[in-house]
């Protein structure tokens, strides 16, 4: 098949716009020829450009690596081949994709180490909810903006706006497609004198897959594409149905997360839970899009971008859970629903424990109800199941959740003048023990004991859950 000169193939407006910049990746590059190509475009020696890039990478770290990865992925080479575009067409350049992926990972990993770009403390173990939100925004907002720009460009280009400027444009060709080259040696020489990056049009143009229209000043009329069929078959994108299904899934996922939070079943922040749920459904939708024979299009872009925060979530899942447990108010903790608190309704606790323990000592006052005083600022979780020897535990979190087998010996010491507050939600019992420096609670069966030491004002609430042996 022969394509008339200067014929722009039918492609997304984003790629047409990028080709319009006239920047092509060089052929003498180290990693994809990005610096080589850009240096030629701006008329700079390649070696000097590399030095500048290295210095910029030292001071800006991840930003430069991310920009380099993006340029490698989106800039065309001398033959007009764009890595990402070819990937979408089912012609992946595996080596380049791996390199781009590695650069992207290194770029994201280096974001926090930069001297001028600092979004927060990675990992998320020390991050509070606001900082996590900021980090998520720092990742998601650029993705949304880039996605919106891409969508806008694609939408505008599909409206067939007239006046598209093909100057400096290097078009790609599909395998097997042959093109003719309108570039005369003289015109090529002129372009070379102008210092344009794609001055090697003669070299690239004689190749079987390129038509360089950079020398448009001497070519016939590169901006007027004759009416003839597209050089390769057009595969439709996901279509309105799948976009609508994605939006609907987002709403359904939000409803499910809100419901889970309402029922106190969430262990992480709702936004994170929603994102994980949404991404999973999006993956399923992408499978259906693929099986229907359509291109993944923008949905595929969103799905691949979602892999980045998903990786971070998986790697920091425990920290995210801990952070939520530390900062979420106790009202969201799954305690037995509280009954009306009657502070003066003092009960005799020993009767509740004599059936399970041989020795019961309560040096404090107890009342019915699973009441927890104050707001929990931090939480710790301890399991005493399978205790084989005495274990001394000094409480460091505001609220400590202790899970033990019914009958496990427990003592609570208050040596430092700090009162202790112990709650048994399953027994509907709350007890306050005074700060008298003694052992105020003893529940013993003669076996190994869990000795809980309350020595700090900010760590004096214990919630005990007993499970069947």
């Amino acid at each position: 098949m022969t394509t008339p000169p200067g014929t722009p193939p039918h492609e997304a407006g984003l790629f047409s716009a990028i080709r319009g910049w006239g920047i092509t990746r060089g052929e003498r590059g180290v990693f994809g020829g990005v610096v080589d190509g850009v240096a030629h475009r701006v008329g700079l020696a390649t070696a000097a450009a590399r030095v500048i890039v290295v210095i910029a990478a030292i001071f800006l770290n991840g930003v430069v690596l991310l920009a380099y990865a993006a340029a490698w992925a989106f800039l065309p080479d001398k033959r007009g081949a764009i890595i990402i575009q070819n990937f979408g067409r089912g012609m992946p350049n595996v080596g380049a994709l791996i390199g781009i992926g590695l650069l992207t990972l290194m770029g994201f990993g280096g974001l926090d180490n930069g001297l001028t770009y600092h979004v927060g403390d990675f990992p998320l173990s020390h991050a509070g909810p606001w900082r996590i939100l900021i980090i998520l925004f720092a990742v998601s907002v650029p993705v949304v903006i880039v996605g919106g720009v891409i969508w806008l460009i694609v939408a505008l280009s599909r409206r067939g706006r007239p006046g598209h400027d093909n100057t400096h444009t290097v078009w790609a060709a599909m395998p097997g497609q042959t093109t003719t080259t309108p570039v005369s040696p003289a015109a090529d020489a002129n372009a070379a004198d102008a210092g344009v990056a794609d001055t090697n049009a003669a070299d690239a143009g004689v190749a079987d897959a390129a038509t360089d229209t950079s020398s448009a000043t001497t070519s016939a009329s590169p901006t007027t594409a004759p009416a003839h069929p597209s050089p390769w078959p057009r595969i439709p994108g996901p279509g309105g149905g799948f976009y609508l299904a994605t939006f609907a899934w987002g709403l359904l996922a939000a409803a499910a997360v809100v419901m889970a939070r309402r029922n106190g079943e969430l262990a992480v922040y709702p936004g994170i839970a929603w994102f994980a749920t949404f991404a999973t459904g999006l993956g399923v939708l992408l499978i259906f899009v693929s099986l229907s024979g359509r291109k993944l299009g923008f949905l595929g872009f969103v799905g691949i971008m979602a892999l980045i925060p998903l990786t971070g979530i998986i790697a920091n899942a425990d920290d995210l859970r801990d952070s939520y447990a530390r900062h979420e108010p106790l009202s969201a903790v799954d305690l037995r629903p509280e009954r009306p608190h009657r502070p003066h309704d003092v009960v005799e606790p020993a009767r509740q424990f004599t059936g399970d323990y041989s020795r019961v000592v309560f040096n404090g006052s107890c009342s019915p109800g699973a009441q927890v005083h104050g707001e929990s600022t931090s939480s710790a979780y301890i399991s005493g199941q399978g205790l084989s020897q005495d274990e001394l535990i000094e409480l460091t979190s505001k609220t400590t959740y202790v899970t033990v087998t019914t009958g496990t010996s427990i003592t609570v010491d208050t040596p430092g003048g700090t009162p202790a507050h112990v709650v048994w939600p399953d027994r509907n019992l709350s007890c306050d023990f005074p700060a008298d420096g003694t052992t105020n609670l003893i529940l013993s069966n003669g076996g190994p004991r869990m000795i809980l030491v309350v020595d700090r004002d900010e760590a004096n609430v214990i919630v005990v859950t007993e499970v069947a042996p």
Partner: protein
Amino acid sequence: MRRRFVQRLTSAVVGGVVTAMGGLAIATLSGREVDVELAAIIALTATGGWLLLTALLTSLRRTPAPSVTPTSPED
């Protein structure tokens, strides 16, 4: 114009990876202990196997060109 069957299977890998990562995120956020090495082994095996399958299907569906016997002038 739609993609051919094998191309559809190949591109479904992207959706499969996103689904798997999402499921893994949900599992870890739910407090399940995930053996990362085992997950990586399964993911690599599944992805490689899937692509191998599609490659085999591609080669099987590619019908060989019919052989043409040259005819002599006498015929």
